[in-house]
């Protein structure tokens, strides 16, 4: 069952499962700290949420941020995973995905 960008796709309990560019991505572990998009293509968070860039640009050259192929409504220049937290960097400064998996602050 797919329940918006707060939930991964639990078709196998021991795997972290997400979606990117229309494809299901399965991982045994979350992404290591300090991985940054770009040059990485995806970041897998501890829920299996798969973070990628979309194809929309804003006027500042930032790209829309997707989690499990769902637009988060945020634009950024890079996405970093560090100590279990997804952080977006861009013109609006630094924003992090909340521990509750509900907000980007």
């Amino acid at each position, binding site marked *: 069952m797919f329940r918006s960008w707060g939930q991964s796709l639990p078709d196998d309990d021991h*795997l972290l499962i997400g979606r*990117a*560019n*229309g*494809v*299901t*991505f*399965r*991982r*045994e572990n979350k*992404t290591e700290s300090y*991985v940054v*998009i*770009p*040059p*990485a*293509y*995806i*970041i897998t968070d501890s829920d299996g949420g798969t973070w*990628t*860039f979309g*194809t929309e640009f804003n006027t500042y*050259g930032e*790209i829309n941020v997707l989690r499990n192929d769902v637009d988060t409504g945020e634009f950024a220049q890079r996405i970093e995973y560090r100590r279990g937290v997804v952080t977006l960097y861009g013109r609006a400064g630094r924003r992090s995905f909340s521990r509750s998996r509900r907000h980007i602050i």
Partner: protein
Amino acid sequence: MAGTYSLTSAGITVVNAVVTLTFVNAPAAPNIDLCFRRFWVGQSATTPSTFNQRVQINTQVTAFPTLVSATPTKLAVADAASVITGATTGAAGTSGINASAEGAGTKTVIWADAFNATNGWLLVLTPEEIIEQAAGATSGVGMHFPVATGASPNTLNWAFGCIWTEE
């Protein structure tokens, strides 16, 4: 005939050898130019091994690779269809993926990098870096693995593609 187009594939098994993943060849002149803005590659399967893989963006003159035909997809519904059509030959005005033969044409490397298969690789070109291929060019633009991935499961479930605008 202007818009943004994607050549994308997923769940692809590549050969355990040097392999062209995507190849796009501009149409004969007079026509519009192709401006490549993004390339990506990643492996969607569970990958307990975190192997590293080299990747290159290149141009290649004839003889072109032998490909699996793949037709570009427009990103905006309102856009016209791409001037590029799917074909296996790599000839002018065509595109394809996952080459079964690399072709004897010389590859000129534009961009060389390496990545971890678990994290994948994304190249977003800044405006100054955009790779432009003019109509009538004698070469196509490809993305390829210059070295073999290693045996299965390293060859399995690759997802890759590129995005360009036609201007």
